[in-house]
């Protein structure tokens, strides 16, 4: 009981509506921002021969990630929940990125050598 007691003695943290309202506002602003940004050509950056970064998708994904993090932390109460829940969320995202990253590792390097 000792270990389980330690986790649950913190009383169930109630998130106040004011926090919800402010997060709602931020999310609306972020949505407007990302739509507006998509109408501007942010150009690209050739940081290496044959490798270019297009800023538009990067900015769009950055805004989407911040919105997602806000929803997960405040609406889904991960900010106030146990270390275990935080670890689960991070593990999920890690394996998701592993799937994307390792698959890309093949597609990206196909152009290098003959196959």
């Amino acid at each position, binding site marked *: 009981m000792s270990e389980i007691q330690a986790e649950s003695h913190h009383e169930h943290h109630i998130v106040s509506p004011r926090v919800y309202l402010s997060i709602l506002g931020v999310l609306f602003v972020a949505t407007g921002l990302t739509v507006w940004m998509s109408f501007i050509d942010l150009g690209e950056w050739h940081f290496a*021969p*044959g490798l270019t970064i297009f800023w538009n998708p990067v900015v769009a994904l950055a805004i989407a990630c911040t919105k997602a993090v806000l929803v997960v932390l405040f609406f889904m109460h991960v900010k106030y929940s146990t270390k275990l829940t935080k670890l689960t969320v991070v593990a999920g995202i890690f394996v998701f990125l592993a799937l994307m990253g390792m698959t890309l590792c093949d597609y990206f390097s196909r*152009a290098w*050598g*003959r*196959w």
Partner: protein
Amino acid sequence: MSHISPVLWQFLVKWMTNFALYPPEASTIAPQMDALYFFMVLVSLIGLTIVILLIVSFSILYSRKRHPKAVQIEGSTLLEATWTIIPLGLFLIMFVWGALIYFRVFTPPANAMNIYVVGKQWMWKAEHPGGQHEINSLHIPVDQPIQLTLISQDVFHSFSIPAFRVKREAIPGRYTTVWFQATATGTYHLFCTQYCGTNHSAMIGDVVVLSADDYKKWLASSTSGDSLAQNGERLFASLSCAACHNTRPDARGPSLANVYGSKLTLSSGEQITADDAYLREAILNPSQHITQGYAPIMPTYQGQVSEEGVIALVEYIKHLDSDYRIQQTTTTTDLLPESQPTAKPAATKQAAQGKVNP
């Protein structure tokens, strides 16, 4: 049992006579791969004997009869470290050795003779540059690097020659390459090892390695008219590629002379070398591979040209060292009735349109 029944006797004789543990080594890579293979078998046997020795000796020494009172042992980090580092070290040796062989097999040398192999549901078609077409068989000269460029017309097949220790998947949509150099003449098995449907087990054949002069005799006896490049040229003309890819100054397509192996910059600014794969992609999915400075008006030939057709076109383009050949084909095609210049531009636009409306 006064006598052994003939069936059993024949079975034993067969087993005694041709019992082989591994296929004959008939290519340059085979001995190298067998060396790695037997190193790994050795390591496995040592590992297995260690484990069996441990189990058997401990079982005898510490059976309940001889050692009724067990001694509780927590463990020892030293031992844990040893059987982590040693296996890891051995595995890494195998990894590096294997990677060397892998890169050697899948990076063909420049001077290799290129044979195109088309996998199709339940047969292999080999296309020699000289025009020989073979079904389920492959005649090659000994002691000469041969590069296979594999493509499949339908599903995944896998071109496997156990005697050469070589295997490469033929996948639809993209060329895959592998090379080998036969060292011993003879006839060896050819298998399709990727499950491809009903007659997967019938998609087998022979790889016949001939000495130099036998190979010349075979080439002479089995030519079937035009070489691949000539087939390609006829296709090049009939598809009216020359309408855009000609040598006239106002040509709408880039000139194809000496394009094979040259460095091209595409309209997207990407730098690539024009190899077989690029030529095939440019024919089937042209709009992503337009060279800089040209309009993306080339129609796709996906579905209009079979894989053999694309191979013939690629082979033709590879041998286009001067515009003289195109000059000749454009003049000859100009004489053909239906390919009047005036009709041609409309034809290509109309062709593009025709394909479009459902």
